[in-house]
């Protein structure tokens, strides 16, 4: 390992958390594509949400203006990130909260574990949070003898099913109602054996299962959707009320927040609270949004800890093109419109951040070499950019990251040779005539060697024409 100056931007450390997959995307995708149930579940869910989202976005006359404002606010935030975080720290402290700084996943896990131990408990309840998924907090707590209880319905399904989340908003999107019923029957103590697969019945079972946990657990861990630097206000956006339970009932609340979630002013929330629900769940407004500033005497947790997490974000910020990925508000609209995600589901991406935003965020957080296949996990169709409520140009970042990816030696040589030939028209014309040699590859190219056989496994190559255009032009 090379010695790096302590103050230099750093990527997320390996060996902790869930940002790196075990295998390259094409390999994982191949397996996912063979799962007909998964494809049907993901296809149904994403088409449902696309239609709902489009309908409620259509109701907003100033949607383009809100997107432009969001992009500007985020650009401004990133330019002033250090001072805004200091401002946030001061405001939270003034309101009775305590701010902790975590350079990476290891440090964040240690901070949270120490806080839970100090509270003298061996169980915490959790609100769905991407940041704590990213750092592998549940595993770290379990290693320390602390039981983490996921309270979001989808996270509960994932936790009970000993599964991995596959979507930012709906981590159990790869499961249908029948599979969820089976998981509940198998794993939920005391569940009614007559439980049906009606979503309302399944939700009611989760309500009964978690009620006692909510009332008796003294420490909760949450993420944050937004943190307002000028006021120290934290916001959590949710649907089920599990968030309200966790943010209201315990004595101690620990919030783990990626440093990019800060927004400068209270007023800025007026932009994001309009964009997020419509882009995310396709609702005009999500059922519940909680906002709190430090500690309120007599109401809610009387101890509040905010953990500010870097874990590779400083490295993302250091890339003038890629840093736009930090604008993400985790709405998952890009997943829902992505033709690749729709067919592979989220697990193929290997990281807790799947889909188009994951394909630009994960490689930057870990360093591109550790997630080198992800920038290529896109046909660059651009649907994600159109859907993004904060106007992140995901296709351009994908292309930018491909330039940083380690390239196979043979490919690099072929690309250089092609560029050279194409910069020399005589060579180029000769190569074009050579294209007709592809006939040697067998009928319709079926005899081609890998990787080109990847094409001809399912598609014919065109018959080379008798003459190229430029030959025709010269002859006319």
């Amino acid at each position, binding site marked *: 390992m090379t010695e790096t100056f302590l103050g230099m931007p750093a990527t997320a450390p390996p060996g902790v958390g869930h940002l790196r997959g075990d295998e390259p995307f094409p390999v994982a995708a191949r397996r996912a*594509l063979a799962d007909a149930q998964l494809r049907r579940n993901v296809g149904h869910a994403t088409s449902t949400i696309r239609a709902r989202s489009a309908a409620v976005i259509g109701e907003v006359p100033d949607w383009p203006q809100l997107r432009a404002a969001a992009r500007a606010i985020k650009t401004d935030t990133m330019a002033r990130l250090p001072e805004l975080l200091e401002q946030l720290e001061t405001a939270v402290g003034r309101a009775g909260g305590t701010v902790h700084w975590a350079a990476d996943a290891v440090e964040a896990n240690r901070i949270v574990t120490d806080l839970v131990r100090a509270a003298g408990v061996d169980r915490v309840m959790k609100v769905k949070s991407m940041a704590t998924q990213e750092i592998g907090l549940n595993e770290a707590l379990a290693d320390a003898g602390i039981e983490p209880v996921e309270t979001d319905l989808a996270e509960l399904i994932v936790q009970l099913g000993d599964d991995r989340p596959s979507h930012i908003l709906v981590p159990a999107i790869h499961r249908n109602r029948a599979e969820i019923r089976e998981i509940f029957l198998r794993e939920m103590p005391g569940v009614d054996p007559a439980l049906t697969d009606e979503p309302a019945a399944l939700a009611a079972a989760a309500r009964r299962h978690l009620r006692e946990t909510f009332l008796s657990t003294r420490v909760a861990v949450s993420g944050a959707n937004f943190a307002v630097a000028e006021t120290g206000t934290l916001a959590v956006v949710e649907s089920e009320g599990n968030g309200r339970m966790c943010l209201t009932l315990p004595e101690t609340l620990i919030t783990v927040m990626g440093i990019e979630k800060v927004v400068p002013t209270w007023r800025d929330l007026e932009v994001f609270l309009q964009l997020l629900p419509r882009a995310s769940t396709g609702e005009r407004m999500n059922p519940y949004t909680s906002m709190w500033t430090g500690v309120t005497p007599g109401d809610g947790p009387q101890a509040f800890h905010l953990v500010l997490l870097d874990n590779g974000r400083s490295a993302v910020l250091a890339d003038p093109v890629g840093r736009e990925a930090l604008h993400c508000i985790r709405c998952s609209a890009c997943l829902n419109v992505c033709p690749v995600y729709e*067919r592979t589901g989220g697990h193929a991406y290997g990281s807790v951040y799947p889909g188009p935003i994951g394909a630009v965020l994960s490689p930057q957080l870990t360093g591109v070499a550790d997630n080198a296949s992800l920038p290529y996990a896109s046909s660059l169709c*651009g649907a994600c950019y159109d859907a993004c409520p904060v106007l992140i140009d995901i296709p351009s970042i994908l*292309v930018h990251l491909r330039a940083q990816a380690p390239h196979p030696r043979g490919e690099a040589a072929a690309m250089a040779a092609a560029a050279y030939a194409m910069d020399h*028209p005589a060579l*180029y014309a000769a190569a*074009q005539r050579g294209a007709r040699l592809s006939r040697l590859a067998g009928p319709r190219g079926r005899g081609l060697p890998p990787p080109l056989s990847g094409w001809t496994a399912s*598609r014919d190559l065109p018959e080379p024409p008798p003459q190229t*255009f430029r030959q025709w032009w010269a002859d006319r």
Partner: protein
Amino acid sequence: MRVALFVTCLADTLFPQAAVATVRLLERLGHEVVFPEGQTCCGQMHVNTGYPDDALRLVRRHVRVFAPYDVVVAPSGSCVGSVRHQHATVARRAGDERLAARAGEVAARTYELSEFLVDVAGVTDVGAYYPHRVTYHPTCHSLRMLRVADRPLRLLRAVRGLELVELPQAEQCCGFGGTFAVKNPDTSTAMLADKMRHVLATRADVCTAGDVSCLMHIGGGLSRLRAGVRTVHLAEILASTEANPAGGVAATPATGGAR
């Protein structure tokens, strides 16, 4: 109008009929077509595969070759998209601000075929005749990078004899994506399978689009299925007339593999 044809390397090499049709169509409409012979490839494949340094020389060549012309037309949304949205970036990345500026000027004068016809030439009825049932696939770069919107459909609706049928889930990517189709062949094929299913559901004889690349992909899949649907570039349809049904491209095969 004097129009420089930006043929694109793929049409030049594998689908000359689309380029020939573009020439015939533009000439029929009274334009003078010139072919700057120094052109080769816009470099999009290099940029999108992660080789912007290799692409730089191709960007430089493209800009040098097309700089003298007032109007540049290409039968490809994808390649025009690269010229418009990538060339200046490649130049700037290499620290060549002067090239970036010149690339921006060339890009501003470069049009995809349907853009040129509707916006510059001001025509939607090009006098074409094409007695077939046709469905149109809006390729991603035409749709989202160039925002050609309904221009190709307006052109197709004015073609005599042509029965236009709507493609279900038309705006979904066909799964080509350049080297995506090679690097992620399974996912690409899954996307293609759905695209072909939708094309077949239209019961069209012909699937058309503004990019030979996507048509090569869709046509290659349909050919493997022996599905009996041809892929034909938009230019070939617009070049076709009663007097000259194949638009003067008679000797050349249809765009896709399917015949």
